[in-house]
Every structure is written in C-alpha cells, then in structure tokens.
C-alpha cells in the first residue's frame, strides 16, 4: 500500500434525463500515491456516487477506452497518475469535440464510421496462393510503417485537433495515420484505391498541421507526421500522373 493524500476531482456531469445543461460535481477523497485517475473514478463510482458514468476496460493503456480530458488535456486516465498533478483539484471532462451521451461518455460513431473508409487492410495487386507461404518482410520494411501501426483508437488525437473540432467532416488524425500505415507497407498496393478518401479535401488536405495530435498520442504514433508524408506521396503521385500519364496508370 502506498502513502495516502487527499484530492478533489471536479467531474463533468451531464444527465440528459434530468438536466439540459452540463454541470461540474466535486468529489473529495483520500487517494493512494499509486492511483491513476481511472482508479479515482472507480473509487467514486464504488464508494461515493454510483450514478457517475464513464468508459474503461483494460486499465493498462491498450484498449483505448478511458480517454478523457484531464485538466484540459486529452489523456488515457489509466496512465495518468494523480500524484503528477500539483493542483489539489483535478478537472475531468469528456473528450473534446465529440457529442456527450452522458457524463464522461462520448459518442464515437463518427470515428467508427470513418475508420473503414480508408480501407485499413492490406490490398495487394495480386493475392498469392496459400502454397506460396507468408508475405515475408525485412525488419527495415517493417520499420517503415510500424510506428503508424501502434494506434489503439483512443481518439485523444481527435480531441486535440482543432481542425476536427471546427469541421467534423475532417477524416481526422488516427484514421489518416492508419491509411499511411498501410500505404507504407511493402505488402500493400492500395495507395490509389485509398486516394478518393485520403487525398480528398476532407482528408489530408484539411489538415493545417497544428501538430497537437502527435503530442497527445499515448503510443507515439505521430499522426501529424503521417499526414504530412501522405500529402507528399499523393502530391508526387498526382505530379507523376500529369507528367507521365501512361506509367502512372491513372
């Protein structure tokens, strides 16, 4: 057991059946120094107020369910230690830019609808027959896309992105990073097939490179870098189709 201290969580409450406007509710309690914010929310739910609603699952930074705004910053609450905050009061809000269903629970339908649009799976020109074995890759080929494959769909990057906040039609950081992950895969030939979605105005060209998506990513995916790389590759592909229309195949 670690040492205990006292903290106050100022929690965003929205109960659509009872009230039309959100409010903040303060919960004061003792916490242990090994508690993360999610532990504190579970403590509130179990011991103080069972009406509080929030999402969580794995508690180890893998499932991406417990993303919330902690003191105004998008965080995975299972990885955010209370002891790291100097202020006695910590403000907890639902992820920005998403509609709120109840308390800290957001509606993620928009993200889930956009995810399959970029065909986030391998699209080889020709399928190999099973008897030809695996699609082998060198460590260097894996290194080209690996960092973009670590996304856990926690949507913190969407909450950090003011472009998405201003225009929800923007495909968004995580989905575009996933498109980059497959475009960079040596086993994939689907770049052109993804172009209609990725290289659309609402796709990579909507991004004005604020860069905060990369800063808040708990898995160091670097969506901002992925989008800038996609801009370059699709611009070069377009230029190639203009200069050499036959060889580009478009």
């Amino acid at each position: 057991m670690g040492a205990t201290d006292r903290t106050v969580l100022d929690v965003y409450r929205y109960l659509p059946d009872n009230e039309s406007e959100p409010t903040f509710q303060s919960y004061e309690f003792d916490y242990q120094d090994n508690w993360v914010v999610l532990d504190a929310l579970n403590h509130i739910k179990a011991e103080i107020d069972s009406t509080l609603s929030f999402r969580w699952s794995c508690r180890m930074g893998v499932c991406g369910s417990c993303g919330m705004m902690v003191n105004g910053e998008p965080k995975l609450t299972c990885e955010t230690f209370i002891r790291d905050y100097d202020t006695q009061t910590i403000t907890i809000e639902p992820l920005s830019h998403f509609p709120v269903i109840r308390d800290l629970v957001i509606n993620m339908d928009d993200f889930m609808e956009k995810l399959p649009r970029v065909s986030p799976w391998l699209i080889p020109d020709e399928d190999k027959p099973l008897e030809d074995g695996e699609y082998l890759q060198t460590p260097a080929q894996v290194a080209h896309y690996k960092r973009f494959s670590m996304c856990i769909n926690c949507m913190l990057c969407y909450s950090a992105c003011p472009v998405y906040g201003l225009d929800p039609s923007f495909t968004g950081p995580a989905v575009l990073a996933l498109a980059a992950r497959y475009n960079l895969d040596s086993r994939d030939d689907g770049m052109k097939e993804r172009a209609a979605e990725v290289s659309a105005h609402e796709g990579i060209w909507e991004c004005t490179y604020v860069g905060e998506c990369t800063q808040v990513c708990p898995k160091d995916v670097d969506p901002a870098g992925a989008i800038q790389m996609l801009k370059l590759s699709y611009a070069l592909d377009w230029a190639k189709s203009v200069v050499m229309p036959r060889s580009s195949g478009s």
Partner: protein
Amino acid sequence: MTRELTRPLPWNWWLKKAVYFQFMMRELTSVAVFAYALLIIWALLSAADAGAFSTFYTFLSSSLSVWLHLVILVLALYHTGTWIALTPKVMVLWRGDERVDPGVIAGANSILFLMISGAVIWLVLM
C-alpha cells in the same frame, strides 16, 4: 432517445493553449509573406516604366517601407522556422534499418537556408 450534447469550439479556442496560439501565429505570418509577394509583383510591374519605378523607389525609401520590411522580415523568419521544423515530418530518410535523426534533417535544412540567404545577401550587397 438520449439527448446528446454537442459542444462547438468557442471563438477564442486558439487562446486557450500555447500550442494553438503558436499555430495561429504561424498561419498569420503567411499574410506577411503574401504581402511581400505583392510588393515584389509591384516592383516587377513597375520595372518597365521609369515613372512607375520612381514611385515604387520613393515608397521603398520611406520610413513606412523600412518599418514594413523589418516587421515582415521578423514574421517571414518565424514562418520559415516553422517550415524547417516541419521538414523531418515530411522527409523521413532511412540509413539502412535506422531512421535518420529528425534533428539532423532540420539542422541540414537550417544550414541550407542560412547558406542560400547568405549568398543572396552577398549578391545584393556586392
């Protein structure tokens, strides 16, 4: 049916975080770059006519023009710095299995920028 709450961004969203403010400043500096492009176009259009070029030259010599140039220089340098900082994101280079350090790419671009700027200044002053 549950009533969902939508939360539009407030107009002053860019004042709420240093990163957002820096982003807006970077975008605003492009206005200064555009303004200087207009100045160059004015110079080119007036070059063929002695009277028009004289008017342009008189404007260049004014204190307003000097201040304008100083302000635009500072803003253009900031703008350039942001683009150089962006280059490692776009230019992902590999040395065998290892990615070239982003600092090396940004540093090389900075040195290139300084060398070209130095050459242009030398050409103008010689």
